[in-house]
């Protein structure tokens, strides 16, 4: 049991616990905090995978910007305790076993395929700084057009949000 395994299991456990907490929490603000927990542990996992730029973006954009937006709207609309949905019989006796079966199948396939055994170390893995540099070169050269297109997308999203949230006179 190496340190990498222990760290992976700690962060994976935090992520799954946060996701479960998101489901069982009755108050939307608790769900939002649980989701921030998931995002933080995912950022740690990205660091372990050597994607330190994505880890930083994950914390700044996801846990910072997007979740603040969520919490802001929850506070603005004064979202209270939500009602429970009816738990149907078919979900208990068919849905859960089928879901677990699918998950086991997926895990089995991943563990036994040639790709699944690839270690997350990578013999020729780029060192940390070179990875960010190579990523920025890829982003601003190969993927320059999609990158510019996302700015249009963001502009349209801002306009759409303004139009939607505006009160009718």
């Amino acid at each position, binding site marked *: 049991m190496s340190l990498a*395994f222990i760290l*992976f299991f700690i962060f*994976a456990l935090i*992520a*799954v616990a946060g*996701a*479960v907490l*998101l*489901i069982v929490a009755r108050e*939307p603000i608790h*769900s939002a905090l649980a*989701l921030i927990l998931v*995002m933080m542990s*995912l950022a740690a*996992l*990205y660091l*372990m*995978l*050597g*994607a330190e730029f*994505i880890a930083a*973006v994950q914390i700044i*954009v996801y846990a910072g910007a*997007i979740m603040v*937006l*969520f919490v802001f*709207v929850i506070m*603005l*609309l004064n*979202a209270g305790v*939500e009602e*429970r949905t009816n738990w149907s019989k078919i979900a208990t006796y068919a849905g859960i076993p089928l*879901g677990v079966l*699918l*998950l086991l199948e997926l895990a089995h396939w*991943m563990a036994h*395929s040639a*790709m*699944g*055994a690839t*270690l*997350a*170390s*990578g013999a*020729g*893995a780029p060192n940390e700084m070179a990875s960010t540099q*190579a*990523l920025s070169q890829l982003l601003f050269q*190969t*993927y320059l057009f999609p990158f510019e297109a*996302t700015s249009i*997308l*963001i502009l*349209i*999203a*801002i306009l*759409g*949000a303004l139009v*939607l949230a505006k*009160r009718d006179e």
Partner: protein
Amino acid sequence: MNAVPISFYLVLSAVLFGLGVVAFVFKRNIITIFMAIELMLNAVNLAFVAFARAWNQLDGLVFVFFVIVVAAAEAAVGLAIAIALYQNRDSLNIERVNLLKF
């Protein structure tokens, strides 16, 4: 960090995606439903990063970047829809939004 097989990350990604689907189906508050979508996008991002690492290709990380941008745009528009909904229905419960229901 090394020694953790990629399959571990992929299984974690599948588990998180499944939990996101469960949250999407079970939740009745429109804001928590948006959060479930964000959870699913995060799970997919983890798979992208793991694959990028497995093949030593940085293109996967660029895609994660774009997924995050699209998620930000989606959250902005989606929460604006939630506000408009609240103004019209005085509730965030999606059971009350049944105008198109047959």
